[in-house]
C-alpha cells in the first residue's frame, strides 16, 4: 500500500451521551498504533474538538504558521474577530486535547464543564439598566420632578450636572 497523499479527515458525530469523545480518543490511539501488519501504514493522527460555543477552538493562524512536521508545539491564547463580535480563544497543545478526550469518559470532562460555564455566564449576564426617567424623555420635553417642582427642559447635560 502506497503512503497516502494527505491525511484522512474523519468526523464522529452523534447525539449527547452517545460516546463520541471516548471513541475519538480510542480511534486516534488506534490509528497511531496501527502497523503495516494490520494492512494499514502508521499514520499520524490528532483529535480535534468542534464545540459549538466553548473554547478551546482551533483557529487559523497557529495551524498555518507552524511547521508541518511539528505542529501545535505551544499552548496559545489570542482573540479572533467574527461578524458577531470579538472573542478570546485558547489553543491547547494537541497532546493536551488528546489527553482530555482520553479522560472524557469521566462524568466531568471539560466539554461538559465548558457547557455549564456558558450557561452560568448567560444567567449572570448583565441586562442593560433602564435609564432614569429624565433620560427617557425626548430632548427638549418639559419635565417636572420632586427635586425641581418647576418645568425644566429634558437635557442630558443638565441631568448629568445634577
Amino acid at each position, binding site marked *: 500500500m502506497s503512503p497516502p497523499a494527505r491525511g484522512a479527515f474523519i468526523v464522529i*458525530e452523534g447525539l449527547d451521551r452517545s460516546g463520541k469523545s471516548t471513541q475519538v480518543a480510542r480511534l486516534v490511539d488506534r490509528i497511531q498504533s496501527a502497523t503495516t501488519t494490520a494492512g494499514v501504514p502508521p499514520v499520524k493522527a490528532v483529535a480535534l474538538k468542534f464545540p459549538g460555543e466553548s473554547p478551546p477552538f482551533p483557529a487559523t493562524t497557529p495551524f498555518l504558521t507552524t511547521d508541518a512536521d511539528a505542529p501545535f508545539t505551544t499552548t496559545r491564547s489570542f482573540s479572533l474577530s467574527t461578524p458577531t463580535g470579538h472573542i478570546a480563544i485558547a489553543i491547547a497543545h494537541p497532546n493536551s486535547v488528546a489527553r482530555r478526550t482520553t479522560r472524557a469518559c469521566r462524568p466531568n470532562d471539560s466539554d461538559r464543564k465548558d457547557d455549564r460555564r456558558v450557561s452560568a455566564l448567560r444567567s449572570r449576564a448583565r441586562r442593560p439598566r433602564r435609564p432614569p426617567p429624565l433620560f427617557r424623555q425626548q430632548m427638549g420635553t418639559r419635565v417636572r420632578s420632586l427635586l425641581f417642582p418647576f418645568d425644566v427642559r429634558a437635557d442630558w447635560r443638565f441631568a448629568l450636572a445634577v
Partner: protein
Amino acid sequence: MRVLGDVSPHCLRSCCSPAIEAVLAAGTTVVADRYAFSGIAFSAQKGSHLNLTYEWCRAPEIGLPAPDLTLFLDVKPEIAMQRGGYGEERYEKQEVQSRVRQVFQRIGEEIGADRWVVIDAGQDRNQVADDIWDSVVPVLGSTHKPVTRLWQGQEGLK
C-alpha cells in the same frame, strides 16, 4: 468573555477550514469530535420560529472541507437517558435529542451512504470501537484525492 449565540459557531467553523486543510496536507489524519453537522442539527432543531431553518443553518457550512468519512453514533434518546450524567447539559432533553436525531438523518441522506456511516452506539463500547475501525481502515489508505467540499456541486439541493 463574550457568550456566543446561535450564529457565531457557524462563522467560527468557516474560519477554521484553511487550518484543517493545512493539517491534512501535512499528512496528518484529523479525527474531529463533532463538526459542521452538529451545528446544523442543534440549531435547526430549534425550529423556524427563530429563523433557524434547516436551509439557513446549512448555508454557512456549504463549501467547508468535506470529511472523508463521518461516523454517526446512533443511539436512541431513551437509551442515552439511562447513561450517567444525562440531563446535565442544556440540550439533554428527550424531545430535543429526538429532533436533533431527525436532522442528523436528513444530513446523512444528503451526504450519502459512501461518506456517512451509521454506527449502533447502543452496543458495548468495545464493539462500537471495532465497528468504527472497520469503517475507518479503508479510508486511511484511500486519501489520494483532494479534499472535497460539503454540499458543493450537489444538484437538487434544497
